């Protein structure tokens, strides 16, 4: 038995080791820069109707990479995740409509600015609000970490309004459209583009407190990348490509074209499924991968920790209790961000969001599993262990042949429950930019603004797979209990 435990532990560490190794091995190959972008920041970063990411930022960085002959890999993970990933050395640079500010200069080195934009306030079409003065006592929606949010906060005292902050532009707009908030603050081109593409708001102020958008790298890191960006930007401005890119998204023609496409779209539930089926399917697959891998690893880890709680060895009990306490106590969201962003800061090694996600789920679900595994073992009558030991069976053999088979039966309902929780918990990993089902939903909504219908589709998909998983687990349970 003790040997089997050691094998389990070895297996676990090998799996983790291999995951980490493949990851660091890819770093050693010819330098490819990973660049984080926003996902819901049209016309700078957004998903086009064909599912490809597009926008001024995307076109610009691609053109510059081509001109300067550098390899880049774009990671559309959202503004916050991208900025934090660069801070944590998880990515090399970020281009996401990011305004140069003194505060940000503490953490980042900026390129030459590539776009100038001012902040505007938008309200519903029938709103009576005409200026900042009308905001007194009202509620304002902002997007976390944006220049618009900073500007609104700078005038908040003076005009006396309260604020709510959102992660996604679309959620911010919707909060105003539904009337929860009276106004939203956003960069002018972004707001204007959104309104042209069907957001039911109007702009009521002149662009103010303008800022320069620039490409950013972590302070002191990748200086050559910054130099190349600046050089490339100059080239594009000189040869007219820069103007072409801007015109493609903000010119008169583009607006008409976008409006036409928006009108043509079939926004029925079934129409949305048809348009997005490949994105939804790949999101679903990612969710299933995360679930299956995490369930397997969490079960192994949970059984090991659970056994460590009941074996007659104080250090093992203590270690296991402490680890369970920590990983059960930490909110999954915090754990995910800590592992993805915090750990690379400590160790200097990058980990992919997917692996960070697997580790997060394994630790959290493993801690819960450990708790009911040790509970199940303790629920087996004490006389069973005594009878087994009185025959001369060593502790491990007694545990393996007598206690565990009885304990497992007690644990099965908890296992099934935990599998379902794991599946649902994968949705939280959208914060670190993993393109699972929930994140896929967010991105689709950012493009088509059909929040209610898309969330309905996503919810149905979750219910269906949870039902399947439950059936499967119950079938296994019946088998074991036979």
């Amino acid at each position, binding site marked *: 038995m003790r040997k089997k435990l050691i094998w389990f532990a070895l297996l676990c560490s090998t799996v983790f080791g291999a995951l980490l190794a493949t990851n660091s091995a890819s770093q050693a190959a010819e330098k490819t820069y990973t660049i984080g972008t926003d996902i819901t920041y049209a016309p700078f970063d957004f998903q086009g109707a064909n599912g490809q990411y597009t926008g001024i930022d995307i076109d610009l960085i691609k053109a510059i990479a081509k001109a300067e002959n550098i390899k880049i890999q774009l990671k559309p993970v959202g503004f916050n995740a991208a900025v934090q990933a660069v801070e944590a050395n998880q990515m090399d640079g970020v281009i996401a409509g990011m305004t140069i500010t003194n505060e940000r200069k503490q953490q980042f080195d900026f390129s030459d600015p590539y776009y100038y934009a001012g902040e505007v306030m938008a309200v519903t079409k029938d709103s009576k609000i005409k200026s900042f003065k009308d905001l007194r006592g009202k509620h304002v929606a902002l997007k976390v970490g944006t220049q618009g949010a900073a500007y609104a906060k700078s005038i908040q005292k003076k005009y006396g309004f309260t604020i709510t902050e959102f992660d996604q532009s679309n959620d911010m707009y919707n909060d105003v459209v539904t009337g929860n908030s009276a106004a939203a603050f956003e960069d002018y081109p972004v707001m204007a583009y959104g309104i042209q593409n069907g957001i039911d708001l109007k702009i009521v102020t002149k662009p103010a407190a303008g800022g320069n958008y620039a490409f950013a790298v972590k302070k002191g890191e990748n200086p050559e990348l910054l130099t190349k960006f600046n050089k490339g930007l100059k080239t594009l401005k000189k040869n007219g490509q820069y103007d072409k890119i801007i015109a493609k998204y903000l010119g008169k023609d583009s607006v008409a074209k976008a409006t036409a496409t928006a009108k043509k779209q079939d926004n029925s539930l079934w129409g949305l499924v048809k348009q997005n089926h490949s994105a939804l399917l790949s999101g679903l697959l990612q969710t299933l991968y995360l679930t299956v891998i995490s369930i397997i690893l969490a079960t192994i880890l949970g059984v090991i920790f659970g056994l460590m709680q009941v074996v007659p060895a104080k250090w093992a009990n203590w270690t296991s209790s402490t680890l369970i306490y920590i990983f059960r106590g930490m909110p999954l969201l915090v754990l995910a961000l800590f592992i993805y962003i915090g750990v690379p800061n400590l160790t200097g090694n990058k980990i992919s969001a997917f692996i960070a996600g697997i580790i997060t789920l394994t630790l959290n679900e493993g801690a819960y599993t450990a708790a009911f595994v040790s509970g199940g073992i303790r629920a087996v009558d004490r006389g*069973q262990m005594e*009878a087994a030991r*009185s*025959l*001369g*069976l060593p502790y491990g*053999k007694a545990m393996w*042949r*007598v206690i565990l088979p009885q304990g497992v039966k007690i644990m099965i309902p908890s296992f099934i429950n935990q599998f379902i929780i794991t599946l649902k918990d994968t949705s939280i990993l959208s914060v670190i930019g993993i393109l699972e089902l929930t994140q896929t939903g967010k991105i689709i909504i950012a493009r088509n603004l059909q929040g209610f219908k898309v969330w309905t589709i996503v919810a149905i998909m979750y219910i269906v797979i949870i039902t399947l998983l439950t059936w499967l687990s119950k079938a296994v349970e019946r088998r074991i209990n036979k």
Partner: protein
Amino acid sequence: MSAAENNRVIVTDLVKNYGSNEVLKGLNLTVKNNEVVCMIGPSGSGKSTFLRCLNKLEDPTKGKIVIDGYDISDSKTNMNKVREGIGMVFQHFNLFPNLTVLENVMLAPVELKKADKAVAEKEARALLVDVGLAEKADAYPASLSGGQEQRVAIARALAMHPDIMLFDEPTSALDPEMVGDVLDVMKKLAKQGMTMIVVTHEMGFAKEVADRVVFMADGHIMEEGNPQQIFDHPENPRTQEFLRKVLNA
């Protein structure tokens, strides 16, 4: 066999505390080969604790216990080996519900490589014949009566070929009509010369089978002697009082 080798169990000044509660207060007892010792005494006097110290299901606090020449109070002694030589039968049987009757009996010999599977199975079936349950080999414990379960438990303990058998009130949890079958098995075992320590309230059994009867109270051995001495001429007032109560009940 010399006199010393003739002793299967030698207990010297055994003390057992649970926290500040002293449960065994310095016991001395020697059990010879082939001897059947019955322990009687009021509930809570420490009989179970004493038995459980002999195979170290409980760790003695003080004192020395030597079993078949192994000093088990020494922490270096391999207890698993010693336990193989001591069979134990519990009040509540403690059969393994996840295994069939046959598997219950075979588990330890096979796991501990005392015999290969075929031999172990043959022996196990023979033991089940001895306890009168040959036809229950493939049943699960849940489908047996208490008396049947206890006889399987005895067969399970015997499968390791122990030199000593410990019984902790083996018939106390049984319906009266089941008691006889279990006692018959134990009598047969005693006749075959098994060394046995039996905690019991079956005074009839003790009178008939015991070579020696030990009366325990309050963590002390109050009195010991052959059945006639203890049952017909008890000297200690506590023994007299106890016997008056149980025999008039």
